């Protein structure tokens, strides 16, 4: 059974958690990110390969203490200005960063999903990422003597993804560009999935990824929950929203107005006064 998004976030995401909201341009869990802002969560370690505008918003709202990432930008537009403001001027709070390459992050999730302590890859060699990130080390292959990079497994407390649909049993189906979502979900302690719709039965789709209900803690039905990114087969990317964000993100005051509108006049701490139902596996 599906759970309202505010209850699912309230149950699964806590102050200080390591939270991955993954999506590679497609199926970005934007609505869930906004709910995290509304609930006023703090001191999060946010993880994502490609933090874009919803991470800019989370950072600007002061939800994050640290960002673990490999490419931070507004795709097709430019920079993330709330992210820049946090990194260069500690506004609204200081933001620690841990920076990888895509290959490194992808392999960290794979190791996390596989129950291994670290991942091995041919990468990073000669780059300045090595000296600036203590989590990138060198390892010697015990069979060939080759020097390779080692990066620690990534195991988020919570992974949040958006998918096209789930069935009534809580099995989740996504397709199109599925990025790193399966690995990010399998690596996490808790998994929240927002979906466009719940259907009786999942009809197979070419290129699909199905996450069995037993690895999903909560499903929330949020039509349009990936907008302004897109949901393949449901709606297109709203490119103008990404362009429009640039002006809002550049200016603390404009951002403040945006934030006030998102959180409402009642402020961020009043959104969950009820005692929500427990959220079970395969809910």
């Amino acid at each position: 059974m599906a759970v309202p998004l505010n209850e699912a976030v309230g149950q699964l995401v806590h102050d200080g958690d390591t939270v991955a909201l993954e999506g590679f341009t497609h199926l970005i869990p934007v609505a869930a990110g906004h709910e995290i802002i509304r609930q006023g969560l703090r001191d999060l370690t946010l993880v994502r390969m490609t933090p874009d505008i919803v991470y800019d918003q989370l950072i600007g709202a002061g939800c994050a203490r640290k960002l673990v990432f490999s490419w931070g930008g507004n795709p097709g537009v430019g920079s993330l200005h709330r992210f820049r403001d946090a990194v260069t001027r500690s506004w609204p709070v200081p933001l620690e960063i841990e920076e990888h390459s895509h290959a490194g992050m992808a392999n960290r999730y794979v190791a996390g999903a596989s129950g291994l302590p670290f991942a091995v890859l041919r990468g990073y060699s000669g780059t300045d990422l090595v000296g600036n990130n203590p989590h990138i080390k060198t390892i010697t292959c015990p069979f060939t003597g080759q020097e390779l990079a080692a990066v620690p497994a990534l195991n988020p407390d919570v992974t949040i993804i958006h998918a096209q649909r789930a069935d009534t049993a809580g099995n989740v189906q996504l397709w199109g560009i599925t990025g790193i979502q399966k690995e990010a979900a399998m690596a996490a302690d808790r998994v929240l999935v927002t979906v466009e719709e719940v259907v009786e039965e999942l009809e197979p789709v070419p290129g699909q990824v199905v996450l069995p209900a037993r690895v999903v803690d909560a499903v929330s039905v949020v039509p349009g929950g990936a907008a302004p990114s897109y949901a393949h087969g449901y709606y297109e990317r709203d490119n103008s929203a990404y362009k429009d964000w640039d002006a809002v993100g550049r200016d603390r005051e404009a951002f403040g107005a945006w934030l006030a509108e998102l959180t409402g006049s009642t402020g961020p701490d009043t959104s969950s006064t009820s005692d929500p139902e427990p959220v079970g596996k395969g809910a």
Partner: protein
Amino acid sequence: MTTLTWTSDEIMTVTAARSLRDGMSCFVGIGLPSTAANVASRTHAPDLWMIYESGTLGASPDRLPLSIGDGILAETADTVVSVPEVFNYWLQAGRIDVGFLGAAQIDRYGNINTTVIGDYDDPKVRLPGAGGAPEIAASCREVIVIMRHSRRAFVDKVDFITSVGHGAGPGDRERLGLTGAGPVRIITDLGVLEPDPITRELTLVGVHPGVEVADVRAATGWDLRVAEDPRRTPEPSGAELSVLRSLTGTART
């Protein structure tokens, strides 16, 4: 004296497109590289196999994608694979002929910075970061870079090595265990640079029509070496320009 009927960006993109050979597998960065690769696939290289890091293999978009994860890439790809698969099975395993990258900053030895301007811990400008570039630069058989020429972009030494070009000179790539040849050509809006076969230092080997060697040297932040007789870039053909303009027209919605 004839007036130019194309812009400096257009000759840059067309020249970059010509660097791609038909049938190559090409790991395509978004922005200028993607535009150039799509020009190539519509002109002399119909069998260019374009890979985007979102996992879309053999994409043939009918318009320019606006991001590496644009839906048009998934719809037109031979197959869509996961991100670990594109980086591990395709890139790391050495299956990609050419990596086609852009950059914010590049240095005398073709090392690329897309991370920070200034000090890492107290940056003047925070850039997007590495993305797929470090491993693209490491593992593709060769790398081609396309970027606009300026003294801010072409610096003696990059502030941060995000992706290794030729390190500090000859032998560095081998020492670092990097399997690919690294940057073999840098195409700008002024001309073409290639690493010297011995010293690995980027050398001006071609200038676009209407550009003088002195212009390129003035736009470069180090004492740029110039080949003995730099080529004059052939002008873009009418067909190339019409393909390019139809693409960029659709991208500017």
